[in-house]
């Protein structure tokens, strides 16, 4: 394949295999869970996917642009609040609340981006952290938004007549479809000139202007895009759980998203989804034994950062890729 040499940014086969495995596995899981009549694990898996969407938005910034966002929960929580308000006060429509949340998070992303994108490296990390901290405090103290209680009693969102978000299997599949579309969109975007610009910025931002491109504009676009992804993921949350609370904007959520990305493998896009599924499951399992599950997550995270800084998928992909290529060359030799 001559194309392979010409295009170093091509997605390795191993990564394709991992993404296929993830979405196929999710479908199998949905089938099995529905057949045995489970609700708890379907709900948990839906939540894992929703937080997987947040992790994807973190990966867009961290893995692709090289910016570490420590306050991505801001947009996630914003999407969740907007969606809850639309569902409760306006109309219990899945599509309407998704669109309104998308618009709101795009606007917030634009404002936040203009503030945060000016700074680089650790300054960006701390400013995004501060932004989220400030907004969550304001929400926490706003009585109109339910203050510390948040908004409860959000009705199920109607996707199509006859299917709303209270149906465990149905909503799991809807969420899976949304996350799949976001994933595909990001994969496609990374292959466009825009995606290449982002990689160039991550590799060496100072050289980008010499090539005639303005890094600021691309970074801002990526930031707004990440805000939209986080907002849409957040919009699904009240549909699933029926409530929103200020905790959704707290640092815990932002931090967990970063942990999911790092454990799964930053920059791989599918890794964050694995990380989210793995760690949401782990939190739930360990959480049923002890209230101190954070210590286990934290230790796991520290070990991953020290031993496998490329994360689970980032570590496994080259191994699998080598296997695949060895097999392919064996086949070719066999044919000759």
């Amino acid at each position, binding site marked *: 394949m001559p194309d392979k040499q010409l295009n170093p940014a091509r997605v390795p086969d191993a990564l394709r295999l991992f993404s296929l495995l993830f979405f196929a596995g999710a479908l199998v899981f949905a089938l099995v869970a529905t057949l045995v009549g489970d609700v708890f694990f379907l709900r948990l898996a839906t939540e894992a996917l929703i937080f997987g969407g947040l992790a994807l938005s973190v990966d867009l910034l961290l893995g692709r642009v090289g910016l570490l966002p420590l306050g991505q929960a801001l947009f996630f929580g914003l999407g969740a609040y907007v969606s809850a308000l639309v569902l409760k006060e306006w109309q219990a429509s899945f599509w309407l609340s998704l669109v309104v949340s998308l618009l709101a998070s795009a606007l917030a992303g634009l404002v936040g981006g203009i503030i945060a994108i000016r700074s680089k490296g650790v300054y960006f990390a701390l400013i995004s*952290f*501060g932004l989220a901290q400030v907004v969550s405090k304001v929400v926490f103290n706003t009585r109109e938004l339910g203050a510390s209680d948040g908004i409860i009693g959000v009705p199920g969102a109607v996707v199509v007549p006859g299917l709303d978000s209270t149906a465990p299997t149905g909503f799991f599949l809807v969420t899976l479809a949304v996350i799949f579309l976001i994933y595909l969109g990001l994969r496609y975007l990374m292959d466009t000139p825009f995606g290449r610009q982002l990689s160039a910025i991550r590799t060496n931002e100072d050289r980008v202007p010499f090539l005639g491109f303005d890094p600021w504009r691309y970074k801002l676009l990526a930031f707004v895009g990440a805000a939209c992804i986080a907002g849409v993921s957040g919009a699904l949350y009240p549909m699933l759980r029926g409530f929103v609370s200020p905790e959704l904007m707290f640092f815990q959520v932002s931090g967990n998203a970063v942990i999911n990305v790092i454990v799964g493998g930053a920059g791989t896009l599918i890794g964050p989804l694995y990380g989210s599924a793995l760690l949401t499951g782990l939190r739930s399992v360990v959480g049923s034994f002890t209230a101190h599950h954070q210590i286990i997550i934290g230790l796991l995270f*520290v070990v991953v950062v020290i031993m496998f800084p490329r994360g689970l998928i980032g570590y496994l992909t080259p191994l699998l890729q080598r296997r695949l290529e060895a097999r392919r060359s064996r086949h070719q030799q066999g044919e000759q």
Partner: protein
Amino acid sequence: MTEALEWLQFVLAPQMINGLSIGVAVVLMALGLTIIFGLLDVINMAHGEFYAIGAYLAVALLGLGLSFWWALALTPMLMAVLGYATERGLIQRVFHSKDRHTLTLLLTFGLAIVLEDVLKIIFGANPLRVETPITGGSELFGLFFPNYRLFVMVAGGLLIAAVWVLVFRTSLGAIVRAAAFDRHMSASLGVPVSRVYAATFAFGVALAGLAGVLLAPIYSVFPTMGRDFVLIAFSVVIIGGMGSIKGAVLAGLLLTQVQSISSLFISPVWNDPLLFGIMVLVLMWRPRGLFGKLGHA
């Protein structure tokens, strides 16, 4: 006219002095952060947890029957040991990789999660109280102030001055500044750079612990006590310029004054947005903060 004077004396002045007592603690925290960043390029996300550990160590030492003054003296030493071990055992391991900034930030973030839960397991999640070691109050400018707050102010001020002298007027400080300026040159001149790194990290952690002990009798002690406090300290360090000692002192005192004076006029809910707004404005004007890095002037 007399009304304005009375307002200055009875409303503004006490608010400013209270702000000053918080200010010195914030500066101690920010100094630790900024020195660690200035030398190691490490954003210590666990700084707030080290502050909390300092306060809990004081609780534990008091529980052993020691006096508050022993706790005040012993805690920084224990914290320095903890900091030295942290640098050697964890941070050194990722220090030489390419993404050092991100990895060390993530590492200390993971450490913060673990430490917070450890505190919860050992001491429980409920707030604990530390008895004020100096009771009573004094009159100052015709106003009444708790003696302990005055003590915190004086002790904190002396400590800040001591840090300043240590970094800028001793040969030990010169070694640290040289290592921050050019680590390869310092290493070839015989400075044990990696030990200097560990010791500097230990020093910053000790300062955080000291701030924790000093403020323990004023606020209650609970596992997440460092979170809000460290946000102020981070803003101070960003505004003052990462790695700048001068910047941390000036920005720390100024910001806490702004906070305490503004709370006379606006609801304290808006304290953080105000702080953050100032930070953003300063960064728009000077993206690297007010002053330069440690070792660079």
